[in-house]
């Protein structure tokens, strides 16, 4: 995880902040966090290439799938962090690893980077 550039998309500040703190503690470099799809897409376009991403599935008023599509196009590995169960996730992304909230940040690195 050390030195990896990881995008965090999470609409709840408290959770985003907690995730950021935990990732930083593991030595990662956090991009974001972003609370909306448009913020996230802006960061992807602007930032240096990403090494991975952690996406909350349901944001305040929208689903995160447009972000997931762009990441897949670019070959960036990502995981969903969500309270929803697997059947609630868009079947287009059925193969994407899913971690449940509350997130144990130490479980993210193996999923993203093997």
């Amino acid at each position, binding site marked *: 995880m050390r030195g990896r550039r990881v995008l965090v998309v999470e609409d709840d500040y*408290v959770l985003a902040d907690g995730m950021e703190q935990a990732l930083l503690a593991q030595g990662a470099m956090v991009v974001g966090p972003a609370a909306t799809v448009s913020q996230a897409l802006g960061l992807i376009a602007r930032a240096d290439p990403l090494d991975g991403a952690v996406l909350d599935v349901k944001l305040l008023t929208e689903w995160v799938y447009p972000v997931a599509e762009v990441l897949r196009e670019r070959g960036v590995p990502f995981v969903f962090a969500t309270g929803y169960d697997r059947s609630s996730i868009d079947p287009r992304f059925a193969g994407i690893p899913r971690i449940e909230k509350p997130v144990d940040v130490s479980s993210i690195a193996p999923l993203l980077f093997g």
Partner: protein
Amino acid sequence: MGEDPAVDTPARRYRMLFEAMDEGFCIIQVMFDPHDRPVDYRFLEVNAAFQHQTGLSDAVGRTMRSLRPAHEQHWFDIYGRVARTGRAERFEHAAAELQAYYDVFACPVGTSEEATVGVLFRNISGRRRIEESLRDSEERYRLIVENARDYAIFTTDAHGIVNDWHGGAERIYGYSRDEMLGRGFDILLTPEDRRDGGREAELRIAAETGHVPVVRWRLRKDGGRVFIEGAITALRNPDGSLRGFLKIGQDVTARRAAEEALRESRRRQRALIEGIPQLVWRASEPAHWTWCSPQWTAYTGLTEERSLGLGWLEAVHPDDREAARMAWARAGDGRPLDMETRLLNAADGGHRWFRTRAAPVRDDTGATVEWLGTSTDVDDLRRLQDQQHVLVSELQHRTRNLIAVVQSVADQTLRSSDSLEAFKQRFVQRMAALSRIQGLLSRSDLKAITLGDLVRMELDALGASAAAERVAVGGPEVPLRNAIVQTLSLAIHELATNARKYGALAAADGRLSVLWRLDDPGAQVPRLVIDWMEDGIRPAPPENGRSEGGFGRRLIERALPYSLGATTQYRLERGALRCRIEIPLHRRAEGDD
């Protein structure tokens, strides 16, 4: 007889009379045996009609035994008696060998010793036949009438007075023959018929038309009622005048009751089938409908004619037709049918889900006679099940999210606490605030949460009502989306807690006002502007929740902008706090949680 034919004598005149008349006439001489028993007789004279009446020719001079040896003995006995006693006799008797029946007058015409007898006779075989057949016929009718136990047969005179009453009538009406003879038949009428002049009407019509059918209730002697199916027939004299009436009626009470019960049963069945909300239908063989209820036609708009056979498939959603055929194929060998398909609703052109079930109707041998099926609207049920699935999923999401929030609040409270005691105090308060919010959220499907609810709830939790005269709260009722409630109310909790500990509510003369308004309420995204203002604050120690990095200020200055897109100002100077929070209120339609 040797008289001169030219001379008119009494003997000649009698002779001419005998020759001219239709009756046969002869004079015989009875012959006796030594014991004085009559054994034969000889014809002495016969008239012209004799041969026609007897069939015997050239009889004069010959004996009866020589002509007809088997002639019955009683003929000889009678003539012998007449000859011996001298008394005439009149009788009727059969003569088998002559194949005739005779009406005979025999009288002595000489002395007892001469034993001559005059016999005047007439062949009455024809009349006898008619009389016999009449007797037979009457006997037959009598037997029929008396044995027709199921029919009430009686006659009345022209005024309706009973003058004949047979066994069946007694059985059906309960009155004996003696009771009824001489009484008017109107005691058999029901009170209604009597009141309506039914008797007169029946008799008048029968008299006019000769025959009137009677199908109605009649009264029994015991007061019970019998339902009679029959007729009244007018009886007429040979001159055409009305003699009376013949009434024949059958007691069909039991049959009528059975028919009525059957009709009632059919009515009930029909009311049931057409009254239940299910669409009902019948099929002669799998999938081939032979009947459908009005509800089917009302729902699908398909007439019964169009639905029969496989016509019903037209109402099935095209995507479900194959499944329907498969379901029938599985049910074909006697297993019940059970399937869910969408059916077209003629009223709105949409489809609704129906559960269709059918069971085979079997005869006494167990063979399937037909199928009786119902289709039940389960669309609402399915929609509720879908909603329930969404709710369960949402609950799971919310619970996990909440645990994550608790974990995060614990982390951050820990970071800003310099002792475990301080951590405990603040953490417990924050958990209490979170708990209050969950309580509000759980009821939010009944009534949307408003900003006023959040503000009053947090101030009440601090006991601010004790300082009510120093607190002003006001603004329009603004319903909030559930998605922003939790973050916003945590922020308000931090503001209120700090006011209680360090701010306006901690000082004896401090004043707090929380005022809000909707800016540009008609816009696509109206802005909710909240002003939290405290005055009369005592100078505060530096290390508290109002410092730059404190949890409360981070929520207001970072979380609200981050999560809700809010703009916030937070100024604390010269004993006064001015905090303004502006939140864009997105429309609920965009996808609430």
